[in-house]
């Protein structure tokens, strides 16, 4: 017997026309100009779904291609190319039912085979995708062995039952598997097009895509232009006719051009939100965004002896005055954090963390006490270094931290380094404290919590805790993993392998006539086909 998931039920509900694409309230007068111009900080590195690794690249890919599922304005899943799926009783086999009317921009139907090809391509060592590990994260059968070159790509646990039925087998049950399908690296691509053009297939003249838009121009580091696709299955309800992404490397310059009316959305440079909010209350916005900012501590053999003492680690964390960081330095609606997982992550229940309720005076007093117990203080100062990569905000926060630690008798030496050097040192455990930020790949707490398992490839501080590992392993099969996540966060608060500092917010200027952008989705995933411009 197969289990119809809640999602399938949702899909049936959603089959009423109003739920698709731009959802325009009655009586809205639309502007004649239905174009949307957004800001890109950097050149788009790749337009190939299986090669792209960037957030900005993903924003473009979501408009050019469509995967099995999409997200709505609240971050809930809605049907994309897949209308629904069935899940086997053991939780290991997903059968997706694909939308028969979905076609590529050249008119050919989107088939299950296109997904099989794309997924095999992602894992294939010949593709050498930097996101090959995502197939492993999704636990698709044989993904790691294929990436290691031990098995051919055809052995991947994904097959086309017929043109419109896709079957995926995973190695262990993953409650959040459907959420992971929103990611660009799982989008379908066309084998015949890639084989015909090679790496040039992403050029506007060659690209065949299945999203709401087609690529009309891409000048590296200058602009990306996308036109509404006439062949998209929901083209009738897609209101925006044209999307433009402009690369502007300087954030302040981008803001000036936004104010001159050249852009519809731009990030607000650090520290300018209060001023802009007062001046443009309808345009300045701050929404939670799934990234977490920390100072990672090196607990490895190469790290300083002092940081192996949990009292020292706690003292440093307690002394960090997060309110000053968010209220006086960043000033953009970011939230002070005392844990790891972003507070707005779907389903996540914030654990009770004792020191989050203390006043800063209490925290500082406790920090002094703990540090004295560990044998450090103004008479016997502790010398540590903090590495951070070049950025104005990182610098300000680092200087603040230096001041917070000073009364404790901790002399913090600041090491500013270029991004690649910083990363290289961190990954080689060549640091005491290091600035770090992690952004969620999908909207579920495990995207954060997996990070601190001993078997994670990202745990640069070498925090190894058997109890933590056991809890995270258990969470993969638990009917409700949330209580386990709370326990995991409690261990992090007790062991304090890093200093939590703040949870990100997306702080943007958005033109007041642009509607349909996500408001409650912490991933901030947006789709051009949901947008529309009202008449002013």
């Amino acid at each position: 017997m197969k289990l119809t998931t809640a999602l399938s039920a949702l899909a049936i509900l959603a089959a009423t026309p109003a739920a698709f694409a731009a959802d325009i309230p009655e009586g809205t007068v639309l502007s004649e100009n239905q174009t949307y111009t957004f800001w890109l900080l950097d050149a788009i590195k790749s337009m190939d779904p299986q090669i792209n690794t960037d957030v900005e690249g993903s924003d473009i890919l979501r408009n050019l291609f469509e995967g099995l599922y999409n997200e709505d304005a609240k971050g809930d899943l809605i049907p994309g190319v897949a209308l629904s799926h069935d899940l086997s009783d053991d939780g290991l086999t997903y059968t997706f039912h694909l939308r028969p009317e979905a076609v590529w921009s050249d008119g050919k139907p989107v088939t299950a085979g296109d997904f099989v090809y794309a997924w095999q391509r992602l894992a294939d060592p010949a593709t050498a995708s930097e996101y090959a590990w995502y197939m492993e994260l999704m636990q698709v059968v044989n993904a790691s062995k294929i990436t290691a070159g031990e098995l051919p790509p055809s052995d991947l646990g994904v097959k086309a039952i017929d043109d419109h039925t896709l079957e995926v087998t995973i190695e262990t049950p993953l409650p959040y598997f459907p959420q992971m399908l929103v990611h660009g690296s799982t989008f379908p691509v066309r084998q015949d097009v890639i084989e015909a053009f090679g790496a040039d297939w992403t050029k506007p003249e060659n690209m065949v895509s299945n999203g709401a838009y087609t690529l009309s121009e891409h000048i590296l580091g200058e602009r990306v232009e996308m036109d509404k696709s006439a062949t998209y299955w929901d083209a009738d309800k897609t209101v925006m006719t044209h999307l433009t992404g402009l690369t502007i490397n300087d954030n302040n310059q981008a803001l000036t051009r936004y104010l001159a009316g050249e852009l519809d959305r731009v990030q607000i440079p650090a520290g300018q939100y209060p001023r802009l909010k007062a001046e443009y209350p309808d345009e300045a916005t701050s929404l939670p965004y799934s990234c977490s900012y920390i100072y990672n501590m090196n607990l490895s053999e190469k790290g300083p002896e002092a940081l192996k003492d949990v009292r020292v680690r706690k003292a440093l964390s307690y002394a960090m005055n997060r309110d000053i960081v968010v209220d006086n330095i960043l000033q953009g609606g970011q939230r002070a954090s005392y844990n790891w997982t972003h507070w707005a992550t779907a389903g996540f229940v914030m654990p009770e963390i004792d020191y989050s309720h203390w006043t800063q005076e209490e925290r500082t007093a406790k920090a002094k006490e703990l540090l004295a117990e560990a044998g450090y203080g103004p008479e016997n100062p502790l010398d540590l270094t903090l590495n951070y990569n070049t950025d104005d905000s990182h610098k300000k926060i680092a200087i603040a931290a230096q001041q917070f630690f000073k009364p404790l008798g901790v002399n913090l030496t600041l090491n500013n380094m270029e991004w690649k050097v910083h990363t290289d040192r961190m990954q080689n455990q060549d640091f005491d404290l290091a600035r770090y930020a992690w952004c969620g790949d999908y909207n579920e707490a495990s995207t954060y919590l997996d990070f601190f398992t001993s078997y994670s490839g990202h745990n640069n501080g070498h925090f190894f805790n058997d109890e933590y590992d056991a809890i995270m392993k258990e969470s993969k099969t638990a009917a409700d993993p949330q209580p386990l996540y709370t326990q995991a966060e409690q261990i992090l608060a007790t062991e304090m392998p890093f200093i939590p500092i703040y949870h990100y917010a997306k702080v943007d200027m958005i033109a007041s006539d642009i509607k349909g952008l996500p408001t409650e989705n912490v991933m901030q995933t947006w789709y051009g086909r949901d947008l529309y411009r009202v008449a002013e």
Partner: protein
Amino acid sequence: MIVYILKRVAIAIPTLLLLIIFSFLLMHAAPGGPFTQERELPAQVLANLNAKYGLDQPLWKQITSYIWGIVAHFDFGPSFVYKDRTVNEIIAQGFPVTLTYGGISFLVAVFAGVTLGAVAAVKHNTIIDYFAVGISIGAQVLPNFVMAPILVIVFTLILGWLPGGGWRFSDPSFWIMPVIALSTSYMASIARIMRSSMLEVLNSNHIRTARAKGLPGHRVILRHALKPALLPVISYLGPAFVAMITGSVIVDIYFSTGGIGKAFVDSALNRDYAVMMGVTILVGALTILFNLIVDIVYGWIDPKIRY
């Protein structure tokens, strides 16, 4: 003359080769690589990437196959970071942009700088001189990363006359601000060099002789003073021209031109070895070429120089 040029070209080849080898080694000595990123790649994924881009080969093999690719096919390889593009494509897109705004900036800087410097020298210690010196010092001390945002605030935000950035070959309104931002400091340098060199020439014997013969002032200046006074300016112009047409990272960043200047700096920060080598070779080759051109022009202007 021909022999001289051939000799210089013959020296250029080993020079470029040394440049390639040194840059290549320096680049690989920098910590991190093209695939070093926030999320450390699993060893297997990294191995696949290194294999695909030949980074698993010993350095000497990488460098010889790289040089062979250039010599045999004029192929600078694929970008390690912009994976849908080859280095040839990146240069083919960015270089025409910087060549356009850099070339125009060069003409503006030379014309304005020489005029300003010459006039200041001729009208030495008058109000015109002070004015010209004032302009050139002002232009020199105002860095282009300060000027660029001011230009956009004035011409785009307040006046609304010019687009705030981007690039269109078909629309010169996109060129104006990059040209102003790039040319001013070069113009100032040219004006100062021109002024002091012109002053020196005006006090020399042959000018005194020309004046004593009773030639009218403008003839003395245009026929006898200008040419020798230009010599120091010309030796400055060779490297300046190369620096201008290969772009300015500041202009590219602030005006989003998509030019090669930003690509060069990015390639170093991204450890995009292939693009970095490609642009280094381009800049190196152009520098050698324009130094040669400057030397040839020298011979033409100054009859004392013979090759």
